[in-house]
């Protein structure tokens, strides 16, 4: 039972255009959602997060949108740059009344390729 899904294994965009990465979840008890970026042979790096009580969070070129009714979140990168080419994972934290201890459930990842 995969509670966090990224249904697009890959995405290809031109430099300067918008990249939109999508993520769906099934558990309404998730209280925080995060996006991680991963380059080959490196560990994932935290990118941006959003609380379940918000619908948008922005950090520079990166914006995350949350639609709770649809159980869907998306990451927008504008403008996309070749250095953004990486695997992007969405992750969710379960609200366990303070005992989640930061445990995360990850999606499968989406490979983003930004062409010059």
């Amino acid at each position, binding site marked *: 039972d995969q509670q*966090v899904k*990224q249904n697009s*294994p890959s995405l290809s965009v031109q430099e300067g255009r918008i990249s939109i990465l999508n993520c769906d979840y099934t558990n309404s008890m998730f209280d*925080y959602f*995060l996006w*991680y970026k991963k380059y080959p*042979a*490196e*560990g*994932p*790096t*935290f990118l941006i*997060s959003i609380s379940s009580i918000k619908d948008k969070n922005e950090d520079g070129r990166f914006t995350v949108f949350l639609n709770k009714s649809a159980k869907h979140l998306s990451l927008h990168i504008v403008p996309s740059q070749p250095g953004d080419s990486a695997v992007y*994972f969405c*992750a969710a*934290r379960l609200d366990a009344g303070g005992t*989640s*201890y*930061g*445990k*995360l*459930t*990850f*999606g*499968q*990842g989406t490979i983003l390729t930004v062409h010059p």
Partner: protein
Amino acid sequence: NAGVTQTPKFRILKIGQSMTLQCTQDMNHNYMYWYRQDPGMGLKLIYYSVGAGITDKGEVPNGYNVSRSTTEDFPLRLELAAPSQTSVYFCASSSVGWPQHFGDGTRLSIL
């Protein structure tokens, strides 16, 4: 600027052998985690620890053991390695649960 350090980076094991994957962090984080990532899949939590002497199982703990004798170190032990344990293993740490800081991983092949 070490952060989370994992050793070794690569290892090949024979079926039935055992080994310990090392993880150390220099950020004085209380929370530490071990994940595995199989090809085309997301990271799955194996074990986690909320402080020295305290560990608990994650989603996929079978075949693994951990210990946490110090704040800095969180080794992962594989006993009787099996081909299904071929994977990339990531260690992570955090101060308040998230966001987690990850090491660069250990790529393990069991033949």
